[in-house]
């Protein structure tokens, strides 16, 4: 039984579990205390001082980090408290680049919202020296504009605490403090995995993805180019949020319609390639198990995870599946199989991937992910960038009728759609591997043991006579934990799924940014994942090998899984990377 304690917030008595913070207790008393630096499970440092409350002491206390004590009496709405919060907010404003009108986060900015909420009348009350910084746009995925940084450190928490990477942190001190990489290194010179969790943690416009929409518009407008687009599974679970739809709304049909209206020549689906990935990966696993290959085999769909492995755990590179990630497979197939069938010179094809991910931008530039001197994928834009393009094009997204993807590489099974959440690749692989190994039909396709938002999940799956031990980890922090246990000999698995972002792609660094005011109280990852599981549930075909277009591509082009041609086009290699570049 959880021990409960009683506290009084603004005269209202509430019962909260021991260990609750005053912020949590206040919410129970229907009091919203403003916060800026606080981001649940990511940053609990109490440094912005906007959530201060009066607990009767000499100084005010930060509600976000203050544990409740029995009988505590808290005032959140005294003139002194309001003035203190307002002053601290105005101080932040006094050193903030207030170009709000053109800011990418305008109207989705927590600082802006707080100014309104706290009634800031004069943004210049404490005007004074302002710090100026050069924008760091060296990374192909992430842009840092410290002129807008409010030093809340949520990005630091995401990078260091959640992802266990820590390539950014506070440098200098006092008024000169800035969030940067050490030794005046730029982000591109660090062992950053481009996951973009810093971006989705940022309350303001200090961190954004590298904008590639200009290149995409240019390709669309270039009549000599045949522009093919493919959206990743997780994009459909979140894109609607950008248009005011509730979190967890699946917008697959509207998305396909919108992509077509933007002017893409072909609207394929990365889900198709996810099914293709399962064909290759499940067979690779079976091959490794039966022929004494390196085990455990670890999935390779997440480019954040791949770069993490290359920098921090190179000893596990032989364990990585050699399969390219789904959108890269799709790119390779578009520029060979599709080009051939459509009679288009691959040089004239531009492949655009819409991804929930900023690491995909880096992945697309890997030289090994190319064929005949052509990159498999030419441009990667995030869910947010797609939303921006749809808005720029004046498309009334929410009113669009559902449309289908184009055929040849547009069909997918339920196994593919769940790729977008942690455990999804594992579940999809198990569905296919089970039937390939046993030759029997899998009746219950739901492997619920690998579902859910826990950082590390384990399961033992009966495949025929075999007990297959599997594990699923999401976030590189949890991946590191899991790999350490394997290194120490504490754990032993056959197959592991690792996703670089906590919760998998639904919570990727390229997904719509949800304000901390919501994230602190709701699990957006579960809601978005639920959209994918519902879509899986609704499909008649839920196993990758049942996808008719997949059968067709093997029949007509690839032969069989792991064939020589498949290896040439759908598999890749990895290299150890240094910690400092």
């Amino acid at each position: 039984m959880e021990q409960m304690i009683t506290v009084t917030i603004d005269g209202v008595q509430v019962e909260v579990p021991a260990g609750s913070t005053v912020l949590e207790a206040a919410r129970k008393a229907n009091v919203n205390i403003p916060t800026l630096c606080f981001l649940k499970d990511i940053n609990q440092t109490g440094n912005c001082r906007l959530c201060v409350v009066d607990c009767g002491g000499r100084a005010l206390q930060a509600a976000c980090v203050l544990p409740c004590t029995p009988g505590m009496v808290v005032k959140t709405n005294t003139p002194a408290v309001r003035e203190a919060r307002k002053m601290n907010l105005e101080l932040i404003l006094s050193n903030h680049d207030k170009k709000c009108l053109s800011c990418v986060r305008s109207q989705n900015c927590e600082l802006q919202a707080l100014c309104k909420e706290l009634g800031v009348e004069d943004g210049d009350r404490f005007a004074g020296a302002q710090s100026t910084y050069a924008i760091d746009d060296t990374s192909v995925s992430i842009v840092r504009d410290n002129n807008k940084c409010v030093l809340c450190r949520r990005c630091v928490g995401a990078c260091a605490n959640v992802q266990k990477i820590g390539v950014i942190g506070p440098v200098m001190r006092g008024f000169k403090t800035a969030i940067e990489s050490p030794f005046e290194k730029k982000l591109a010179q660090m062992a950053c995995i481009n996951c973009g969790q810093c971006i989705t943690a940022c309350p303001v416009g200090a961190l954004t993805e590298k904008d590639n929409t200009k290149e995409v518009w240019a390709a669309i407008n270039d009549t000599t180019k045949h522009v093919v687009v493919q959206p990743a599974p997780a994009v459909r679970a979140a894109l609607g949020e950008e248009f005011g739809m509730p979190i967890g709304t699946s917008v697959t049909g509207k998305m396909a319609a919108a992509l077509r209206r933007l002017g893409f020549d072909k609207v394929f689906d990365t889900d198709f390639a996810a099914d293709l990935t399962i064909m290759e990966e499940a067979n690779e696993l079976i091959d490794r198990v039966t022929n004494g290959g390196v085990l455990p085999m670890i999935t390779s769909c997440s480019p954040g995870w791949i770069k993490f492995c290359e920098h921090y755990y190179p000893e596990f590179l032989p364990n990585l599946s050699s399969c390219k990630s789904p959108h890269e497979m799709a790119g390779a197939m578009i520029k060979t199989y599709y080009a051939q069938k459509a009679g288009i010179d691959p040089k004239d094809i531009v492949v655009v991937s819409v991804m929930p991910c900023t690491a995909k931008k880096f992945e697309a530039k890997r030289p090994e992910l190319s064929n005949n001197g052509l990159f498999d994928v030419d441009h990667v834009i995030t869910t947010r960038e797609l939303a921006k393009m749809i808005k720029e094009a004046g498309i009334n997204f929410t009113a669009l009728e559902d449309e289908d993807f184009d055929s040849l590489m547009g069909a997918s099974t339920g196994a593919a759609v769940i790729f977008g959440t942690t455990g999804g690749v594992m579940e999809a692989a198990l569905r296919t591997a089970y039937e390939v190994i046993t030759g029997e039909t899998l009746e219950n396709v739901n492997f619920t043991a690998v579902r859910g938002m826990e950082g590390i999940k384990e399961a033992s799956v009966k495949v025929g006579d075999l007990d297959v031990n599997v594990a699923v980890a999401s976030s590189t922090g949890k991946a590191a934990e899991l790999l350490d246990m394997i290194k120490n000999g504490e754990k032993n698995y056959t197959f592991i799924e690792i996703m670089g972002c906590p919760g998998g792609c639904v919570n990727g660094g390229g997904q719509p940014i949800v304000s901390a005011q919501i994230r602190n109280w709701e699990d957006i990852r579960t809601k978005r994942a639920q959209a994918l599981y519902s879509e899986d549930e609704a499909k008649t075909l839920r196993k990758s090998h049942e996808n008719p277009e997949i059968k067709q591509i093997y029949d007509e082009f690839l032969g069989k899984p792991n064939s020589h041609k498949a290896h040439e086009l759908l598999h890749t290699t990895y290299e150890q990377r240094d910690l400092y570049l």
Partner: protein
Amino acid sequence: MDLFRAHVLVCGGTGCTSSGSAELIKRFEEQLAANGLDKEVKVVRTGCFGLCEAGPVVIVYPEGTFYSRIKVEDVDEIVTEHLLKGRIVNHLVYKEKAEEEETHTTLEDIDFYRPQMRLALRNCGRIDPENIDEYIAFDGYKALGKVLTEMSPEDVIQEMIKSGLRGRGGGGFPTGKKWQFAAASKADQKYIICNADEGDPGAFMDRSILEGDPHSVIEAMAIGGYAIGASEGYVYVRAEYPIAVKRLQLAIDQAREYGLLGKDIFGTGFNFDMYIRLGAGAFVCGEETALMHSIEGGRGEPTPKPPFPAVRGLFDKPSNINNVETYANIPQIILNGADWFTSIGTPGNSGTKVFALGGKINNTGLVEVPMGTPLRDVIYKIGGGIPNGKAFKAVQTGGPSGGCIPAENLDIAIDYDSLTAIGSMMGSGGMIVMDEDNCMVDIARFFLDFTVDESCGKCTPCRIGTKRMLEILERIVEGKGEPGDIEKLETLGENIKKTALCGLGQTAPNPVLSTLKYFRHEYEAHIYEKRCPAHHCQKLLNYVITDKCRGCTLCSKVCPAGAITGTVKEQHVIDTAKCLKCGACMEKCRFGAIEKH
């Protein structure tokens, strides 16, 4: 066995080392050998005697003769006269005042020392800090022995609570209570930490103790370890204290060699060892949570309390942290008892406090007085008053975290509560005296400049708020103050005090708020009359030549800006537009004809 009839104690504190005491020691050794006295006279390098103003300081025992400002050349005379022939070298003996005829031969005769009571500094200047045997000779490690063989951890804590010892690092939290909290936390590992990250400008109490009596800290930490159940200790000391670090390390090594640190101390089964960690000199690392993060290898930044160190401290384990001076008191409290300790000082403020006296005062140096000593006694009796016949204006206690105390409060008794009541604080013990020439706005600006520079940058009010306050102060001293600035300073100051994350941020506005309280008229004069009443702020003063001028032309020759004109034997004139306000003319004028307005 070595037999020495006389001991020459040469101060080896940082102050005296800077003024050349190392050469003195060398010269003494050479001269003693040359005179065949090296077998009967021992030269000992000790810790700080406190009267740094008079350094380098040499004391010759058994007479206890107190020689001051000794130069290498003086050594020969002391050896041939005093040590060989037994004649005290009167002209080298310390004099209270320059014009004074009478000399005081021993420490006890000197006004600087007479009102003092040296508890924390008891061994400083008495023992060779690099020799553990000397510490043991003066009852060293006896308290540890007593604690381990006769007392339970609970007894120790109760004795500490009874003694009323409060943290000497600034906060004044009861040490016994702190130990009790740490003792109550259950854990497989606990830590005892010594905060030796002394960072207040001008303060050097802790440095002197570590330099002069490092074993007292080691012994106290072992006692603390026993009381709270910690087997490991860390001393966090700034790397800028090389002598202190060296002697402390030597002391730790010697204590280990004697088995006073390590396993099974005194055969009681108690294990305790300790390590030094060097700080890179960030002021904020004196804040206990920041200090612990720095030991852990992280950035030295405070984290919110709770959790308090006693619950979750160093490496997330329950920890107790006290400062150097606090520890230095503990062995004596154990040996002499809590009742003895409470008999010193005033109720609720037992014992003594060490201060580093500096600024506009005759006797700068280290002083230790019983709590409750009137501030006036420290300034006038011990400090010898203000030099050059100037008037006392204020004294800043508590460094950048404290506040100024004006003349009207000179008679307050020095203790934690009285100082806090008047808007200052005890702090770690810096005491900077200001006279009529000090501009209080500029003093506030000086301290805030320090805090802004040393802010860790973590929380908003300290990172930006103190910077904004500093900008306003800079404006005011430059004559660009605007109506509303005082009110803005107050708003910012009060809110930073209320909302900053750590103690350093919360106290940062104190110098401004206390000068605003006692010297508001100086702020007003700067802002509304564009005038600095102390004639200190360069931008707000004009040099003028009065009719005392004889027309000697010296001033016009020395003026680097060519701002002074006039013909020989006639009154000269300064062109204020050209004047750089460097003051060179005023210095040169032999007739006192140039004045600052």
